[in-house]
Every structure is written in structure tokens, then in C-alpha cells.
């Protein structure tokens, strides 16, 4: 730290500490330009991703919408409704497609269907008070890329039972 020269001069006008911040300005300018380039106001900021899920990549280009999300990790099935998450099922062995509480040949994950039916009823109730609103049954599905189809099949069936028919699978956009 530079000592203010005034102390040594004994009484003369104080000089401030000279801080050389031009290099920091350089850095800030470059960072700002980079951030300006990747600035985005799309609604996908509201889609919260689960850290346990590694999403597959796809060449699709439709942006996501805000809707109820079902997350299928390697160990759990979670329903996320605008930030409120609820674990509805545990996956015992994801490679073998075994979900706790669901027998081999059965498709229905009851807790999932129940939870979604409640959300659906709440949405329909809210839509009664809104002029523009009709229950469309849209639901976002996030699944880890290593999930076998057997688990996805059961999840999709259970979601369908709760009358959410418009599936939207979330994927990461491929570059180019």
C-alpha cells in the first residue's frame, strides 16, 4: 500500500492514494462485452434443472414453457411445481427398471399420479377465475440420459393417468 506522501512532506496539500485501475477497466470491459453477447430474456430461466440429471442433447429448437416438471433422476422421481418439489418415488435399481412400490409388470406409479391429479385439480380451479385459461395438460419431463425406457414408460403412463397428455421432453440444444 502506498503511503500518502503528505505525511512525509509535513503540512503540504494531501495527495490521494493513486490507484491504477486501468487494467481492471480493461477486464471489466471485456467481461461486459461477453455477457452482452450471451444475454437472454427467454422464459427458460424459470425452468429449474435438477443437479442430478444429465440431460441428453437434441437438435430441436423449441424453447421450453413454464409448466409442471417431472424430474427423473437415477434414484428418484420428483415433481416440481414452480419451485415446490416433492419426491414421489424412489428408484431402487435404475438399470433394471425397478421402482420402489411398483411391481415389475405394473405401470402405474400411484404417488405420481395422485400428486399430479391434485395439481391438475388446482390448475383447473385457478383457471375458472381466469378468462384466458383452459387446462392444456402440458407437462415438462426431465430425465437423466441413462434412464432405461422401462422406467420412462411407467412414468409416462402415470402422468397420462393424471390427464397430462402434452409431454415436452427437455433437452440441451446442440451447438450449430
Amino acid at each position, binding site marked *: 500500500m502506498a503511503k500518502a506522501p503528505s505525511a512525509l512532506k509535513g503540512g503540504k496539500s494531501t495527495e490521494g492514494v*493513486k490507484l491504477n*485501475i*486501468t487494467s*481492471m*477497466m480493461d477486464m*471489466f*470491459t471485456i*467481461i*461486459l462485452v461477453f*455477457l*452482452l453477447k*450471451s*444475454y*437472454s*430474456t*427467454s422464459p*427458460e*430461466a424459470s*425452468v429449474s*434443472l435438477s443437479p442430478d440429471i444429465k*440431460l*441428453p*442433447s*437434441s*437438435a*430441436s*429448437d*423449441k*424453447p*421450453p*414453457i413454464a409448466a409442471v416438471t417431472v424430474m427423473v433422476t437415477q434414484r428418484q422421481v420428483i415433481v416440481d411445481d414452480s419451485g415446490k418439489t416433492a419426491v414421489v418415488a424412489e428408484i431402487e435399481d435404475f438399470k433394471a*427398471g425397478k421402482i420402489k412400490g411398483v411391481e415389475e409388470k405394473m*405401470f*402405474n406409479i400411484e404417488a405420481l399420479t395422485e400428486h399430479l391429479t391434485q395439481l391438475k385439480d388446482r390448475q383447473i380451479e385457478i383457471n375458472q377465475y381466469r378468462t384466458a385459461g383452459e387446462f392444456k395438460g402440458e407437462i*415438462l419431463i426431465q*430425465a*437423466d*440420459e*441413462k*434412464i*432405461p*425406457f*422401462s422406467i*420412462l*414408460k411407467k412414468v*409416462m*403412463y402415470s*402422468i*397420462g*393417468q393424471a390427464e397430462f*397428455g*402434452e*409431454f*415436452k*421432453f*427437455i*433437452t*440441451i*440444444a446442440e451447438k450449430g
Partner: protein
Amino acid sequence: MAFKPSKKSKKEIRVDELELTPIMNLMVMLIPFMLLSVEFIRLTIIESTAPEVSDPSEMVAQQDPQEEEQQKALDLTVFITKEGFTLAASIGVVSNQEEGAEAGPTIPLKDGVYDYAKLTEMLVDIRDKVDEMADIDEKKKYSVILMPYDELLYSDLVQTMDATRETTIDGKRKWLFPNVAISGSFL
């Protein structure tokens, strides 16, 4: 031409230090704001409409019997098995049954992985044939039904959906069968 150095006493030019405070202020405001809305990964969605489920053991869409008689439906189905892709359709657009062809998948695995390029190629042919057909059920014209086997990984399923939905030919985007439905238990 060089002049003799002037004998006039040079006045000392004092350069004021650059006033960087206002611009620093701007940076400190803008950068955190930008950081909050930066997008490092872009998310996209693949839409798929669930068919009406009538029987718990079968999730394939059931056609209205009255409609079925009026128009021919394509019912393009792609079975994704351990050995590869098997295509099937109600109308004979899938020309995989040659004389003495083995009863294997239409598009077998290539070097142990799914041959998406070949799948897209065959679908471009089918799409061209479908576009020429006149009396085909409009609503179901560009739909494909995927029937994966149980152990298929989700990433492979998504790549299959990509291969069946669209492709790029000579830099132009060509839609193949964008309406995809996923069905299960074909056994």
C-alpha cells in the same frame, strides 16, 4: 526540416488523471445484472402427445373405427430393438421385404451403435412417397410411433426422435415426421 530546439522555456503540461469513477460505477451495476441473466446452456423441448390409453398393457393409439374405413392411415412405426431399427407401416411404403431377406431388423446396428443416418435416409424416402399419396389421413400423415424395447437408454430415444423429426438436406431444413408418439410393450 528540423529546427533548433526552442529556447523558450517549455511550460509543463500537466495531464489530469483519468476520472474512472463513473465508468467503474457503470461496470459495477451492469456486470452483476448481466451475470444473473446469462445463458450458459440453452434448453429446448421435444413435444410428444400421449395417445389415449385404453388398456393398461398397451399404450398404442386406438383409431376411431369409423374413420379407419374412410381414409388410409400410414401408421408408420419404428420398433427400436437391441438389434437395430425395424420399420413398419400400414401401407406398403417400407420396402424392406426383398426376396429372401432375413427376418432381422430393417436397419441393423452399425458397429454396435444405432445407425441414425440410415434411418433418416429411409424416412426421407418414405416422406417423399407419402407426400405423393393423395388419399391419406391428413391428421396422422406426419406422425410416427416409436416402440422402444425396455432397456433402451433415454439418450438413444431422444436421438431417434431427432432422426425421425427433421433433417438437413443441402443446408435446407426438411421436416420428416414431426408428430411423434411413444408407445410401449409391443411384446
